[in-house]
């Protein structure tokens, strides 16, 4: 066996001798003339439109300048020429070249990106004198509305080493892939498949003859459920604030607007970012990259009273006409809990409790229900778990119960916490999108929708929650009263359109004494909520407004919802009396 091996190795060695010795010159010639080159044909990434067909994302050509130093007669002359055309200094270009100085000189290095057509023309015109320059064209992603659709759409980033390894050869090194939002979630559909060309090139690298070609398959274009006009208005209304707005169709779950502020410009990610640009985005105290509509969870405050009311009626703990007396505060478990209205609401039934957001009524109801029942209905209405919108950054929030307390906090649930949860405080955390799903279920007669952003086939079927009209109708009528019967949501009232909703003011810090919000430093101010739907009779739109540290929901959130309804239902704002 050893002999057989020795013979085979000798044969191989002789073959190598032949290939490298006798035929070597032929092959060296072939290598020197780089005869065959495999050139990838990049697939065009799919476009993205809004529901009406307005273009949100497109691809535009972008020109970069490469320098092949091995074809250079004089590097200094090349740099000088490039600096003149690019309108920059030679020292700046030398710095760029220094970055790649360890690469062999026949590997072209990137000199500049984003050339103008004029610069491309000037360099092409000098191709004979300066054969060392190559112009490379690639497609640049352009987000037409920049920050206004940034969180929803996401952006593109260079593929990471880990993704490269786990992609099973589908991704090339240096390729751009979707990051966050629709770009990430639908990346494989938008990307398409690259093709390839095998070309024979001459000594200057110019293609002479094509040997074969596998065409690229362009990516699929997507049409979103988003209403661009509503989306832009939502972003405009959040300008200068931190917060989120969700608008969805309560019957299908189609998302019409999904806004988060502060925002960022996704177009800056389309090119290589330098360190300072990255840091200014990452270190921004407003955390502009975070999608507050789906990624961050907050205390819902009084908005959660809708859930507690549904639970109370469905479990038969209260009837709509039952009354509770509010004197401004009440003791539960040896601790005094206050109503937001210090002088008290007097005798309160469900209708009045919702309209005026009476805390004492819901403390009492919460105590009767217990945390387990509250948690059950919170989950039924879509809180405490991801809604399934199909965007990568969505978080589940938290619906606390006894089991959670034992498992996570390692101590029993305190009954006093139930009282806080009954008005949407305590460990309870929700995302604005979850509240939109909750609101939709109340509005559409008890169906939990799955929100979606891409119009493609039938919407995901809503889940019937088996909540009878006897449960939902009193809550709905209470929510109409909030806006239309001088309740807390009066600033969302629109003549000619019956809006139903609920305000919420979530405490950021527990306060011993009531301090006026405007006197507090901004990061300690309450979060403002307004969840709503319209028209009350046949709901077509749910709007959730969240303003971080905005103060009262009645003042900071409700007017924003009003503006959005007017936009969507085309109600002329100028004809309305000033509010």
């Amino acid at each position, binding site marked *: 066996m*050893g002999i057989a*091996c*020795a013979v085979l*190795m000798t044969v*191989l060695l002789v073959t190598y001798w032949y290939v490298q010795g006798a035929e*070597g010159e032929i092959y060296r010639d072939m290598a020197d003339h780089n005869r065959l080159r495999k050139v990838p044909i990049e697939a065009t990434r799919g476009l993205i439109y809004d529901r009406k067909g307005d273009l949100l994302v497109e691809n535009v050509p972008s020109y970069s300048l490469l320098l092949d130093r091995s074809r250079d007669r004089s590097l200094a002359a090349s740099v000088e020429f490039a600096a003149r055309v690019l309108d920059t200094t030679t020292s700046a270009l030398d710095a760029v070249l220094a970055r790649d100085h360890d*690469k062999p000189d026949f590997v072209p290095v990137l000199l500049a990106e984003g050339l103008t057509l004029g610069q491309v023309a000037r360099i092409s015109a000098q191709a004979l004198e300066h054969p060392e320059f190559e112009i490379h064209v690639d497609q640049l992603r352009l987000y037409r509305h920049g920050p206004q659709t940034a969180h929803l759409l996401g952006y593109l980033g260079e593929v990471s080493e880990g993704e490269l390894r786990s992609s099973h050869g589908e991704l090339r090194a240096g390729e751009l892939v979707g990051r966050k939002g629709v770009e990430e979630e639908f990346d494989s559909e938008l990307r398409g498949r690259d093709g390839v060309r095998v070309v024979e090139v001459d000594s200057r690298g110019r293609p002479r003859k094509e040997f074969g070609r596998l065409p690229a398959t362009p990516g699929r274009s997507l049409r979103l459920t988003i209403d661009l006009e509503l989306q832009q208005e939502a972003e405009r209304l959040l300008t200068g604030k931190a917060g989120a707005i969700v608008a969805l169709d309560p019957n299908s779950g189609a998302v019409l607007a999904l806004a988060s502020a502060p925002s960022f410009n996704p177009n800056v990610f389309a090119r290589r970012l330098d360190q300072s640009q990255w840091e200014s985005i990452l270190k921004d105290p407003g955390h502009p990259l975070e999608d507050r509509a789906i990624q961050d969870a907050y205390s819902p405050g009084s908005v959660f009273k809708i859930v507690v009311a549904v639970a109370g009626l469905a479990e038969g703990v209260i009837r709509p006409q039952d009354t509770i007396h509010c004197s401004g505060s009440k003791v539960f478990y040896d601790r005094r809990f206050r109503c937001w209205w210090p002088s008290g609401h007097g005798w309160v039934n469900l209708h009045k409790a919702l309209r005026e957001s009476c805390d004492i009524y819901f403390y009492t109801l919460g105590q009767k229900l217990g945390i387990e029942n509250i948690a059950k209905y919170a989950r039924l209405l879509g809180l405490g778990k991801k809604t399934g919108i199909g965007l990568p950054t969505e978080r589940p929030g938290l619906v606390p119960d006894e089991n959670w307390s034992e498992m996570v906090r390692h101590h029993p649930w305190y009954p006093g916490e139930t009282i806080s949860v009954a008005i949407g405080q305590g460990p309870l955390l929700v995302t604005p999108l979850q509240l939109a799903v909750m609101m939709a279920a109340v509005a559409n007669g008890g169906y939990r929708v799955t929100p979606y952003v891409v119009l493609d086939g039938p919407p995901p079927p809503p889940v019937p929650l088996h909540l009878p009209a006897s449960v939902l109708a009193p809550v709905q009528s209470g929510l109409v009263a909030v806006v239309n019967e001088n309740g807390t949501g009066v600033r969302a009232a629109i003549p000619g359109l019956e809006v139903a909703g609920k305000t919420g003011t979530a405490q950021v810090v527990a306060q011993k004494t009531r301090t006026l919000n405007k006197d507090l430093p901004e990061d300690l101010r309450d979060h403002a909520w307004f969840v709503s739907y319209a028209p009350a009779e046949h709901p077509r739109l749910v709007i959730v407004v969240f303003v971080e540290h905005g103060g009262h929901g009645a003042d900071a959130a409700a007017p924003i919802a009003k503006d959005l309804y007017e936009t969507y239902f085309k109600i002329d704002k100028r004809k309305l009396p000033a509010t």
Partner: protein
Amino acid sequence: MRPISRSISGSFRLPDERASLHTLANVRWGLLVAAVLLAGIGLVVVASASATMHVNYLPRQALAVALGLMAMMLIFSVDYQVLLSLSLPIYAAAIALLALVLLVGHRAGGAQSWLSLGPLHFQPSEIAKLMTAILLARVLADADQRYVGARRLALVLAVVAVPMFLVVMERDLGGAVMYLPMVAGMLLVAGVRPRIRFLASVSLVVVCALVWSFALLPYQRDRIATFLNPGRDPLGAGYQVRQSKIAVGSGELTGRGFMRGTQSQLRFLPARHTDFIFSVLAEEWGFLGVATVFGLFGLFIFKGVQVALRARDRAGILLVVGLISGFAFHVLYNTAMVIGLLPVTGVPLPFLSYGGSFMLLNFMVTGLILGIDFRRYVNR
């Protein structure tokens, strides 16, 4: 006790006495030096091959070499008799590993053959080969007739068939085929009746035909067809072989120099850090580099065969033969494939190709062979 009494009995036994005392002189240095030099050359070539890739594979390959050296010392320090006595549990563990890959493994390049332990990924099919060889050596060593009996032959085939089947299930046909040279080498040395040898050759042809028509995936059939007719597929396998041949040939006698190979650095060569690492070597170091590496492989195999000839028991002989056969097959196939003499399939080059699991296996093989040689005078 016997070695000592033997040394007393006659002065001409002096070298044996030194050997019996487990001195370092008893280590087969040629084998070790060849392995370490090859791995060192591998690091240089991997550095060059990944210079223009987006991932620098050098640190990971260096780590694999370091781990390999440790694994080699570890396996060297264990008496192979202990391994033989534990061959059944070791084999069971190999099967369990392969089954685990099928259940929770990762897919890469069409094959599902990776296991992840945190940041580490490894391919159990490599180590499983070594683990299977130990049981095979034990099964065949027990036979003392001139030829292996039919029942034992069936047992041997069954022992190989299970891991091979699992590797095929991982869609790694090439990996499964790599079990065959190992088994064939062991069987030939253990002794197989001429008519069975004939039958095996015939059935190999039949199986090849069957595999060709039923079991091969389209891309695999493509590669073989392209090998037979390189002009038919300029985009796929034909391109690969053509570029590889240009790389090898353009190296001429002295090579183009470290990191100066246009074929390698301009990314004409696919898989240049793994299966086609030898073309990078040939391009940048020329025939001199090729001959050096061939010399080192020759030294390794020659020393390995020497160990087999001098091992003190059948199991030791068989184990070394199996391991060296597998090793030699990899070397011969890969170097032939790179210049288009054999169809392209995933056969890496020992010690040179990038890949941690395979590096680990080859160092473990080295450690095991060194250990078997080291203990050739120790008695049961």
